Structure formats: structure tokens, C-alpha cells
């Protein structure tokens, strides 16, 4: 009957829950039986005192009986596991020294892994906060030698109108930085133009108000903007009635039509605070007056692959080029297209970095496991007797193994909890102080992936180092172990061999990490000592972008900067001031096309060359030496003949070894103006620092004005203190003009190597941890070996061996293991460090100097770790040692 089956199942379940009650019931039942039997015996004539014992004897093994019944109830596995766990924890408590060392070791390993994995989880694993993010792709066009990641709008418009592979395709670009004024100090904010379908495609919508309508997204459309959550909170104090009101950007009025939610993350590596319609032309037209450059994101139709999308885009490009002039089409012939997932675009660069860090910290964990395994082995050998007793009481091999493993798991559990605490601390530290260029770093935390990871590696470590004593326990020589007072030799041998193996692997792992770290350190030092070829000390920079609405005429723009420079020169503490459109290290580089008079362009050069419009004092302020010719002067005004200064790289590229002085060049394409070269200056480096200085051409800002400039202020000392004063002077000239991106050149230099610094630091820390743990492991193994050989050492010393000889004897044993460890480590490093080559600058991954130096370092550390126990061995009193059995 089903009901009876269910009743039986119910009993089983009840059994699990009400264990104690059922235990009592079982006891009562048997007691009752015993009592009845006792009574019967007394009726049969057995004496009153004798009856209970007789009854019991007839009953048989009560304990066995109870056990059988209890096993029936299904308590078996769970109960024994629980018992083992409690026993394990008791044992740990009884050996506080061992437990402390083991738990700390494990905590270091697990904690470090937790920290790195939480970064990996936040950056690589966690999906982008858009709907169905795997179907979103990022499309770029690029020339093989130039890095270009944005797309001219005519191409985007063609793709939009002709594609067959995208569910939707959107773009962002333009707008840029604007001056937000009114209701407070003028502030410079970052805005971006987006096509009307940008937000719907990502699956996000404004929290308040609405998104853009198609009819708003056209040239000459209404001035509508959507604010980011942080701008709304910060500047407008979360005003709930802001939607529908006007704000002033670059002296123009815009209506706020929506506010984005706090959870929205813009799919780029910066955070715009304002969104406006991209207002791209309605149709693709290469010959339009202005050309916008946009970033393109699209959503693939279901079942469409990235390859197919790429092919489709190439087809559209080819088709559209038929309508172009032959020379233009020719120029585009080499243009390539790349389609990658949005996820990869956003995090692709750091993937390798993070994986390397994860591998490094994994090595640290392995070393920690080896250490604890070694400790366990020492303990297991000492417990040989206890295990023998268990075996003699009837415990099977599996039972003993299970018990040992459970004890290890208990230890791993403690280590895991400690590691969790360490990890949590590390994660919050990282969130505050982490480098900026790793996307999503601010969002790291303990999500379910991190927890799952912690549980997994805790179990992994427990099983890994738990296997060591199990291996030893499987070879118990019962009789001998019971008879001897100290652990038997055969088991000791296996244990020692395993410990030796552990020591060798620890050293190899530590060496690999040390070598990697050494390579990174050397590379970093090289990078940081790259001479930028100008003097970045004590220089403050601030950027200004003039609104074209207010300063439409180029002459007005120049006059503004001239005024500001005059005001700035009056500040105390200022040595010199200048302005430039793209100075080094600011990440800005405007380009122009260069043509030589009467000379064809040298083959293989691209048309665009970095161009910088400067005030005459520029070279003086940055201390860029003049190689030949002259600097700009204040006589090089608009009405004077146009002059240009070039750098050495330019001269070499365009004029080879001839002196370019007096040569004429045309800047700005076929409609540009001709300039005479009057001077050659030394090269300066731009970002990234590793690349060679590019060819550059300089023009005077009187003759080639620009509305965006960087103010350069060389202070006598402490440039940062001048920041407020500089801003004040700018406001004196124009009340509503903010400055932005205010830092010193020194800080820019430091920031430009921030990712390398982070890598080097992280890997260095991990290598340090590995070395410490490995040294501890070596010490442990050698100390134990010495303890084992105390008897032998006593004999030798009694027979006349000197201290020296004893030390040598002990060290010789260690040397062999150390040599193996180093050898294995070097081999491993040779195999693995090539993976680092993309992170290295100026250093080969097989750099012999690093390998040798690091190996020597590790040998020294290992020898020291071996020497200490060796020295202690010599302090032993021979008579004591001899008696030591």
C-alpha cells in the first residue's frame, strides 16, 4: 500500500531528525527485554545478584546490537562523518602550535586567491549589465599600422541602412566636454552623443523622464539632453522636478528630458555624465562639410556569427566605395574591419594580465598546501601508534583514510574561514586603492562566484594536503609500530621521501614566481627611467576648451590664451608659462596631413602627422632644446610669413639628412597653408612611453589658432599648490570658463605606468609570499630530518665528529633537494615566462641576468633555512642523543 510505503519513508526521515529520541527508544526496548529475561531467570531459580549478569551474558553484545540497528536507521555515514569532524577539531585544539601555523599558512594562500579571483569575477566573468549582452558586438575599422578604433559616420550610416545581420546598430560620439554653467561654479563635464536607439539596444531606460525619439536625432534637432544619475545627484541635488527644465551648456540652453538610473554603466572606459542625440546626418555622405567619428555597437541577429557580420560589413564598404573617386577608394583599400564582442572590447586588454596574476596566486596556494602537507606528514608519523590501534580494533583502511581526510578537511575549513576574512579585507582595500585602468574594479565584491570559488579551493586544499597522511597511513606495519616506541622505519621512509618531493616542488614554484617577478621589476625600472626628453619636474598642466559659440573667430581664441598667459606670468612662484594644443603626456594628439614642396611623399608614410600649436614660450617652459634654427617669437603673428618648427624625427623622416631649414611644407591637405621651417628641436616622447618619439610639427598659435589648449605652468617649486591660483586667473579673464584635467606632469608620468606598477607590485607580493612559505617548508623538512637523525648524530659526535662535520652532513642532504628544486624551477620558468613577454619592456623573458640572480637568491634563502636546524643539531648533547630511541 502506498500509504504504508510513505509511512516507512516518513519513519526514515524522522530518524534523521529525532536521533536522540530514537536512540532512547532503542535503549528502552533492549532494557525491557533484558529486564524480562532477568525476571525469567529469577523465576527459574537463579540467584538475585547473579540474574542481571546471566541475562546480559545470554543477551550477547549489546553495543554491537545497538550499532547494527542504528546503522539500519541510516545514521551510518552522516554520523561517522560528524564524529570524525568533531574528533578532528578536538585534535587540532590539542595541538595549538601546529594548528596555528597550518591555519595561517592556509589563510594566506586562500585569502590571496580570493582577492585575485574577486577581481577576475568582477572583470571577466560577470556579465555586462545589458540585456542579452553576448549578442552585443563592437565594430572598428583600422589600418594595419595605425591604431584607430572609431569609425567615420558615413561608414556607420551605410552599415545602418544596408546591413542584413544586425537586429539593431547604434553609435556614440561627438559632443565631448562642455562647460556647464549656472547655479554654481562653472564646471566642465563630459558629454556624449548617442543615436536614439542606443539605450533601447542595450536594454536600459531612463529612470525619470524618457529616452530620445527618432525625430530628435537629426541635424538641427531640438536641444535635448539626458543626465547621468551621478550628475543629477551631485549638481542638481536629485531634484525630482528637473525633467522638463533647461540647463546651460556652452552658453546654450538644453532641456533635460530624462535621468539615467544609478545602475547604468556606459560601455566604454570612461563615464560620460550627459547624453545628447548624436544628430548624425540622415544619409551617408563622404563630401559633407563635417565628418563625425563614432564608436559603433551593434546587436547581432540570433544565429548570426561575428564572422558573418564582418563579411557583411566588408561587402557594404566595397559597395559604397564604388561611388567614390578612384584615389579615395584606393586609399581605403587597405582598411580592415574587426568585430568583437562588447565584453572582449571592454576587458580584452586586461585578460592576460589577470590570468597571469591568477596563475601566480595559484602557485602560492600550491606552496601553502605543500607546507601543510609536510606538517601533516610529520604529525602522521607521530600518530603511527594511534592508527595501529584503530586498525587492530577493526577499522578498515577506508575508514581510517576517511577519518584522516575528514581531519584534513576540518583544518582546511578553519583555513578557509581565516582566508575568507583576509580576502574580505583585501578586497575592500583594493576597491579603494586599486588602479583605474582595470574596468569594473570598483564593483568587486563577494558575489556567488567568489563564494563558490572559496568553497572549491578550500575543499581542494583540504583534499590535496589530506592525501599526504593517507598515503602514509596506507602502509601501516601494525605489529612493528605497536612494539616500537617511535615510528617505524618503513613508514618513515615513505614519509621522508614524500616530504623531500614536496620541498623540491615548493622551491620550483617559488623560483618560477621569483623569476617572473624579477623580470617584471627590471622591466618596470627600465620603463620608469625612460627619459621623456623634456623636463617634467615642477610643471603643472591644465586644459581649457573654449566654446566655439563664444569664441567663433580664431583670433579671439588666441587672444584669450594670450590674456591668460599674461595674467599667469604675474603669479608669484611661477617661472614660465606657455600654452600648447597637444603637449606630451596629455594623451591628446591632433594630427594634420603634411605635404612637401616639390617633393613626393616618401613611400610608406601616412599623411597624418602629429601637430602642436604652441605659444612662443612653449619650448622654453618645457626646456626642449633647439637643435638648429630658431624658436618662435612674438613677431610670428598672423600677418607675418607662416613659420613652422619640426622635431628631429620629422626631419629624419621627411628630409633624411638634409637640413630642413627654409623648406616649405603644406599643412592641412590640399586646402591648407604653406609654412616655412625655421627650426628643429629635440624629440619628446608621448604616451605610451615605450613607443619611439613620433615626428612632430609645431606652429605658432598666432598663425594656427586652436580653441583647445593645455596651459603649462612651470613653478619654481611645488606646482600643485598653484592649481587654485591658476584657475582664479583664468576666471579673471572669463568668468564662465572652467579649467579641467588639472595635474602635474610628474603625476601624468606616474599614471602612465600605473598598470605596470600594479602588475609588478602584485606579482612581487605573491613571489615574496611564495618564497616565505617555501623557506618555511625547507626549514620544516630539514628540522624534522635532523630530529629523526638525532640518534645517529649523537653516535657520530660521540665518535669524534666536529660541529662542522655535523653541519656539513645535514646540509649535504638538503643541497641535493635544493639543487633539484632550482633545476626544476629554472626549467619551468623557461617554459612559462614567454607568456609574460607582452608585459615586459626592454627585457627578454629568458633574461639570463635575472635567472641567475634570482636563483642565487633562492639558494641562499634555502641554505639559510637548512642551516638553522643543522646548527641546532650540533647543540645536542651526545649523551642525550645516544639515549634517544
Amino acid at each position, binding site marked *: *500500500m502506498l500509504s*504504508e*510505503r510513505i*509511512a*516507512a519513508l516518513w*519513519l*526514515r526521515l524522522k530518524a534523521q531528525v529525532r536521533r536522540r529520541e530514537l536512540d532512547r*527508544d532503542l535503549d*528502552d*526496548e*533492549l532494557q*525491557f*527485554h533484558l*529486564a*524480562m*529475561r532477568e*525476571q525469567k531467570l529469577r523465576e527459574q531459580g537463579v540467584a538475585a545478584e547473579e540474574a542481571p549478569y546471566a541475562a546480559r551474558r545470554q*543477551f*550477547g*553484545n549489546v553495543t*554491537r*546490537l545497538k550499532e*547494527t*540497528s542504528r546503522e*539500519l*536507521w541510516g545514521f551510518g555515514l552522516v554520523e561517522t562523518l560528524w564524529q570524525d569532524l568533531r574528533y578532528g577539531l578536538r585534535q587540532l585544539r590539542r595541538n595549538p602550535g601546529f594548528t596555528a601555523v597550518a591555519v595561517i599558512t592556509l589563510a594566506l594562500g586562500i585569502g590571496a586567491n580570493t582577492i585575485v579571483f574577486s577581481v577576475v569575477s568582477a572583470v571577466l566573468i560577470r556579465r555586462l549589465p545589458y540585456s542579452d549582452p553576448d549578442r552585443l558586438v563592437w565594430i572598428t575599422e583600422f589600418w594595419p599600422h595605425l591604431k584607430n578604433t572609431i569609425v567615420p559616420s558615413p561608414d556607420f550610416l551605410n552599415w545602418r541602412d544596408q546591413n542584413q545581420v544586425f537586429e539593431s546598430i547604434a553609435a556614440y560620439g561627438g559632443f565631448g566636454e562642455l562647460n556647464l554653467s549656472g547655479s554654481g561654479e562653472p564646471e566642465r563635464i563630459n558629454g556624449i552623443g548617442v543615436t536614439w536607439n542606443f539605450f533601447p539596444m542595450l536594454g536600459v531606460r531612463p529612470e525619470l523622464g524618457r529616452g530620445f525619439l527618432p525625430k530628435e536625432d537629426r541635424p538641427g534637432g531640438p536641444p535635448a539632453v539626458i543626465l547621468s544619475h551621478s550628475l543629477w545627484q551631485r549638481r542638481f541635488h536629485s531634484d525630482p522636478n528637473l525633467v522638463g527644465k533647461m540647463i546651460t551648456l556652452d552658453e546654450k540652453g538644453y532641456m533635460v528630458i530624462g535621468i539615467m538610473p544609478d545602475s547604468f554603466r556606459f560601455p566604454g572606459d570612461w563615464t560620460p555624465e550627459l547624453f545628447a542625440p548624436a544628430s548624425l546626418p540622415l544619409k551617408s555622405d563622404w563630401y559633407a562639410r563635417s565628418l563625425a567619428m563614432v564608436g559603433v555597437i551593434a546587436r547581432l541577429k540570433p544565429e548570426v556569427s561575428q564572422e558573418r557580420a564582418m563579411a557583411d560589413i566588408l561587402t557594404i564598404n566595397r559597395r559604397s566605395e564604388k561611388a567614390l573617386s578612384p584615389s579615395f577608394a584606393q586609399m581605403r583599400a587597405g582598411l580592415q574591419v574587426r568585430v568583437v564582442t562588447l565584453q572582449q572590447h571592454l576587458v580584452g586588454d586586461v585578460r592576460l594580465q589577470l590570468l597571469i596574476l591568477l596563475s601566480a596566486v595559484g602557485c602560492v596556494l600550491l606552496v601553502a598546501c605543500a607546507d601543510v602537507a609536510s606538517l601533516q606528514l610529520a604529525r602522521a608519523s607521530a600518530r603511527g601508534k594511534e592508527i595501529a590501534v584503530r586498525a587492530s580494533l577493526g577499522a578498515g583502511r577506508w575508514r581510517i583514510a576517511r577519518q584522516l581526510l575528514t581531519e584534513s578537511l576540518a583544518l582546511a575549513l578553519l583555513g578557509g574561514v581565516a582566508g575568507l576574512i583576509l580576502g574580505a579585507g583585501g578586497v575592500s582595500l583594493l576597491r579603494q586603492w586599486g588602479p583605474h585602468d582595470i574596468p569594473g574594479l570598483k564593483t568587486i565584491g563577494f558575489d556567488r562566484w567568489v563564494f563558490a570559488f572559496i568553497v572549491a579551493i578550500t575543499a581542494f586544499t583540504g583534499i590535496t594536503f589530506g592525501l599526504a597522511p593517507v598515503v602514509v597511513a596506507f602502509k601501516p606495519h601494525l605489529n612493528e609500530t605497536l612494539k616500537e616506541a617511535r615510528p617505524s622505519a618503513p613508514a618513515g621512509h615513505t614519509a621522508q621521501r614524500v616530504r623531500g618531493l614536496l620541498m623540491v616542488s615548493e622551491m620550483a614554484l617559488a623560483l618560477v614566481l621569483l623569476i617572473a617577478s624579477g623580470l617584471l621589476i627590471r622591466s618596470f625600472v627600465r620603463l620608469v627611467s625612460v627619459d621623456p626628453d623634456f623636463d617634467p619636474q615642477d610643471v603643472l598642466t591644465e586644459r581649457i576648451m573654449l566654446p566655439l559659440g563664444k569664441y567663433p573667430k580664431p583670433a579671439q581664441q588666441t587672444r584669450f590664451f594670450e590674456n591668460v598667459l599674461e595674467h599667469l606670468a604675474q603669479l608669484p612662484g611661477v617661472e614660465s608659462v606657455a600654452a600648447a594644443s597637444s603637449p606630451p603626456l596629455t594623451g591628446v594628439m591632433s594630427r594634420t596631413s603634411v605635404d612637401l614642396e616639390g617633393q613626393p611623399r616618401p613611400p610608406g608614410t601616412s599623411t597624418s602627422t602629429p601637430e602642436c600649436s604652441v605659444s612662443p614660450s612653449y619650448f622654453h617652459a618645457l626646456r626642449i632644446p633647439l637643435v638648429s634654427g630658431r624658436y618662435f617669437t612674438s613677431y610670428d603673428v598672423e600677418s607675418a610669413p607662416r613659420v613652422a618648427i619640426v622635431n628631429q624625427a620629422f626631419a629624419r623622416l621627411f628630409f633624411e639628412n638634409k637640413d630642413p631649414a627654409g623648406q616649405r611644407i603644406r599643412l592641412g591637405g590640399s586646402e591648407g597653408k604653406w609654412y616655412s621651417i625655421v627650426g628643429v628641436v629635440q624629440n619628446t616622447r608621448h604616451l605610451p612611453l615605450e613607443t619611439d618619439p613620433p615626428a612632430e610639427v609645431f606652429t605658432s598659435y598666432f598663425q594656427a589658432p586652436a580653441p583647445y589648449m593645455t596651459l603649462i605652468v612651470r613653478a619654481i617649486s611645488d606646482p600643485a599648490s598653484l592649481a587654485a591660483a591658476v584657475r582664479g586667473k583664468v576666471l579673471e579673464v572669463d568668468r564662465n570658463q572652467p579649467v579641467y584635467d588639472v595635474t602635474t606632469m610628474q603625476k601624468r608620468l606616474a599614471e602612465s605606468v600605473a598598470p605596470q606598477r600594479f602588475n609588478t607590485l602584485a606579482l612581487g607580493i605573491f613571489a615574496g609570499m611564495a618564497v616565505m612559505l617555501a623557506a618555511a617548508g625547507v626549514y620544516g623538512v630539514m628540522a624534522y630530518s635532523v630530529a629523526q637523525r638525532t640518534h645517529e648524530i649523537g653516535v657520530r659526535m660521540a665518535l669524534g665528529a666536529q660541529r662542522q662535520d655535523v653541519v656539513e652532513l645535514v646540509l649535504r642532504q638538503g643541497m641535493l633537494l635544493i639543487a633539484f628544486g632550482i633545476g626544476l624551477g629554472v626549467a619551468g620558468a623557461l617554459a612559462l615566462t614567454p607568456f609574460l613577454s607582452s608585459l615586459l619592456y626592454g627585457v627578454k623573458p629568458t633574461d639570463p641576468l635575472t635567472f641567475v640572480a634570482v636563483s642565487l637568491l633562492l639558494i641562499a634563502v634555502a641554505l639559510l633555512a637548512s642551516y638553522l636546524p643543522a646548527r641546532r643539531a650540533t647543540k645536542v648533547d651526545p649523551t642525550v642523543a645516544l639515549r634517544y630511541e
Partner: protein
Amino acid sequence: MEKPLDLVQGTLDMLVLRTLKRGRMHGYAIAESIHQRSDDVLHIEEGALYPALHRLELRGLLAAEWGLSENNRRAKYYRLTAAGQRYLEAERATWDRMVLAIARVMETA
């Protein structure tokens, strides 16, 4: 006392179930009943009896409840369930067939 015969577990189950067909009993009474009815030939070891009783209870062939014994002690009483009844009949049939077959083998010269 003569050396008790060894009983196969399945046979013990059958005997217990048959005993309980006569009414509800506690463990001691079951053992006594079998001992008496078999004329002192079959003596059930407690080590076998109680595991058997618990096993049958878990399988749903017996149901148990606590009550007071003749001398006012707390005792666990077992009774046969409907499933137990059906199981007993099936086992009985199998047993009879087996006994007949063995007898035939032993009889033929």
C-alpha cells in the same frame, strides 16, 4: 540446551511475521513465542531479532507503537500491516514450494 539451528535471515523474517499474525507483541514475547511453538528447537538470538524487527518496520511490513507491558513497564509493541500480511503470504507460498521440492529430492532413492 541443544545448539540452536542457524536461521537464514529471510526465514527469520517469515517466522516473525507469522508470529505477529496472531496479534501484537513486544520483542521479548515474539522470541518466547517462537521458542515455545518450536518446542525449544528454535532459539532466536537478540542480536538477530531486533535488527530484523527494525528492518521490517522500516520496510513498512510492521508498525510499532509504545505501550505498557503486563508488569507496567514501557515496551514497544509490533503489529502486522497489510503490506506485511501480503508479504507473509507470498513468503509462505515460496517456502512451501521449496520444502516440497527438497522432500522430493530426499525421497527418491
